[in-house]
């Protein structure tokens, strides 16, 4: 019978082979525009801007999604690096999220600068691998929790492998994958993804991601006994944003509420502010920042909260798409 370590190693291998396949089949290097010298005058800058091909709204939304996915990937990369370093990488599979989120971050960066209305195969595949990694990771984290004494107990949910963490790389992958589908819609009047209205489906996806991420924050802040009132922010603000996005998803043909945009901006702010609070939280551990090598591992995860910002950006991308394509 295979041990969990062997299964994990197998999964890691499969993902590596998949990534290698993508590298071989797809365009291994993102095209790079020839670098031009910086504009000499304002007029030249304006001329160059006018010469750029017009950007389809779907591409604009897709690039915004690349940015959102990239931010979530960055959050996951840093968070899993810290947490898995803390776990001494005792299982080689623990390197997987680092590799995958780094790749996702890279292709997201690439996508953000890519104005072409076409699917990029390597980018697309990487996003798919990213989503798959998230789902496989969640499955293994569930497996790890179940085998501890007490099974699905609060103790194991608090201190076992975190259930919600791999889901964030899945979210980055899904948003990125969605962005590639959006790029497919260039000429259509009302863009659709998987037969659904693209703008509203994206609003729903961002909302679901927000609820899941908020649930993770709720669990971990419950572990911290909400000892600081600001710990309620990520369990109050994002679910309201999710509800507003849900309202947007179901409101066809009515345009989104103005409040939704502002609330998403607030959610984005909460994500960044959360990192700040976590920096402060590290200082509240024994030795504070003087003992950073221990307390960064031990204290609240500094890179985790910006994933809310990433999701809020995805929600704003949905609203942007709806501005350009009210019927989407």
């Amino acid at each position, binding site marked *: 019978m295979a041990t969990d370590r062997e299964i994990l190693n197998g999964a890691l291998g499969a993902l590596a082979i998949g990534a290698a396949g993508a590298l071989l089949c797809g365009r291994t290097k993102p095209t790079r525009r020839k670098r031009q010298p910086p504009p000499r005058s304002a007029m030249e800058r304006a001329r160059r801007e006018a010469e750029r091909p017009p950007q389809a709204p779907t591409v604009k939304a897709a690039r915004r999604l690349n940015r959102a996915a990239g931010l979530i990937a960055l959050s996951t990369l840093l968070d899993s690096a810290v947490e898995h370093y803390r776990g001494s990488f005792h299982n080689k599979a623990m390197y997987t999220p680092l590799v995958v989120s780094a790749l996702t971050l890279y292709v997201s960066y690439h996508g953000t600068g890519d104005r072409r209305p076409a699917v990029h195969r390597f980018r697309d595949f990487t996003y798919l691998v990213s989503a798959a990694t998230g789902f496989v990771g969640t499955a293994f984290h569930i497996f790890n929790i179940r085998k501890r*004494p007490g099974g699905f107990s609060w103790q194991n949910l608090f201190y076992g492998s975190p259930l919600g963490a791999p889901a964030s790389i899945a979210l980055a992958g899904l948003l990125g994958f969605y962005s590639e589908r959006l790029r497919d819609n260039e000429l259509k009047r009302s863009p659709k993804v998987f037969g659904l209205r693209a703008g509203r489906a994206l609003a729903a996806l961002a909302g679901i991601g927000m609820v899941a991420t908020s649930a993770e924050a709720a669990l971990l802040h419950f572990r911290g*006994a909400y000892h600081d009132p600001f710990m309620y922010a990520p369990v109050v603000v994002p679910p309201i944003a999710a509800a507003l996005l849900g309202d947007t998803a179901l409101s066809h043909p009515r345009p989104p509420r103005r409040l939704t945009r502002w609330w998403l901006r607030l959610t984005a702010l909460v994500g960044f502010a959360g990192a700040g609070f976590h920096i402060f939280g590290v200082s509240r551990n024994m030795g504070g920042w003087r003992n950073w090598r221990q307390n960064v591992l031990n204290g609240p995860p500094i890179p985790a909260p910006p994933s809310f910002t990433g999701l809020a950006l995805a929600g704003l991308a949905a609203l942007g798409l709806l501005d350009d394509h009210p019927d989407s």
Partner: protein
Amino acid sequence: MFDEALRKPRGKGGRAPDPMRVGGWVPMREYPGDEEVDFAIVGTGAGGGTLACKLAEAGFSVVAFDAGAWWRPLEEFASDETHQGKLYWTDERLCDGANPLKLGANNSGRAIGGSTVHFAMVSLRMRPERLNSRSKLGYGADWPLDWREMWNYYTEVERALAIAGPVNYPWGPPRPRYPYRAHEINAAGLVLARSCEAMGIDWSETPLATVSAPRGRSHPCVYRGFCVTGCSTNAKQSVLITWIPRAVKAGAEIRDLAMVGRIETNAGRATGVHYYREGQWRFQRARNVVVAGYAIETPRLLLNSANAQFPDGLANRSGLVGKYLMAQTNQAAWGVMEDEIRWYKGPPSLAITEHWNYTDTGKDFFGGYAYMSQGPLPQAWASTLSGNRGLWGEALMREMEKYNHQAGLKIVGEVLPQEANRVTLADEKDQYGLPIARVTYSLCDNDQALVKHALDFMSKSLDAIGATDIWTEDDDTCHLAGTARMGDDPTTSVVNADCRSWDIPNLWICDGSVFPTVGAVNPSLTIQAIACRTGDRIKELASQGTL
């Protein structure tokens, strides 16, 4: 530098040490000796420290005395088991009986904050039926307290100490959520968890008085493992860093290195206390005196205060002062695990089962026991192996090599209250010229049967998860209680439910001595709950003019 607190009192000159800040001080009110304060409290541990806070916050003038030092844990607690012996009460006492007690580390403290400065932080509620063990379970004595009222006071204490406990506790009536979440269970605790699951009984995270998240200036526990030798990080919510700072803030004066040797009485009422501080005997006048010196020093002080009007000692018309001493049994089963355990990491008792406290069938004895995972530091473990297993020389060295694979389960067992187990005065005198305590102690057949049951069960449960080299430690005791029991009848008890002595209306006793039965869990939470109740009752009596 580490012993400075033992040489010179710190609570004087209008200021008190702030244990939460390196070199910090806070202002403290001071009372002259000839001013009659509302309350003079002898002892600043779980009973006295808590009550000092409650009374000061209720607006009474309070002076509390402790023979021990006012430590600054952040600066003066060494990672050294021997050095930290400075926290224990190790003055001479005579111990006899069939099972003479070993007094010191495991059962007494000498510091501002009392034994809570070095307790294992285990904070459990007593099983409600144990408060009525005579009428409901057929042994011991009934307490004059209603468990539902105690349940509320337990809640108050749990909040005051921000107890980190499980979300759902498997035993007893429902309780409010613990203020902080339980700590991560270490490998030693997981051994208990797996062994309980193998035996088909419930287990739980242990509710502990050490924070699992920041609280004020307390950092979350860093799992340093030196809990029972003094927490140097202030994660432990001892009386020293919880009730005492609150008491000082509310206007109480705390006098460290102040040994109370005698309570003065006049016309049937207490008038104040004689205490030794800075090389001389001094006197503090008081309208009320509270004795909170725990189960040996409390009866010793009452007996040492005998005078013409009370020739057998204060509050002793019933003849029960010093009697019904109880020391919970503390036997263990130990074994070696194949995996590394490293039990020194974290608080020693992170997992617990109260199964045999709440289950009344399948037993051939009265009472119950809880047992917990263990984590003795190397020196304590070496002393267990040499003292209780008889290993020495190379055999001891070989056994110590297994230290990182060792696991164990240890009980807190109830013993029956026996009149013959008692504290009396010896002829010998201590450094203050006061007669020392003679402690006479024997286990009865029921106590022995409980221990046997526990050792059998724990050995089987270790065996069930593949532990090897299993052996039992058959002779150890821990928490004390009794010697000034509370009750409803002046002929069979020393104090009433309010901890007020039957004989001297302005003399109170507020510590573990008042327990009529000792119960099957660690007593610190119950002592603090009783102190909270006593504080509220005194406030109520004062408002009624019946103090």
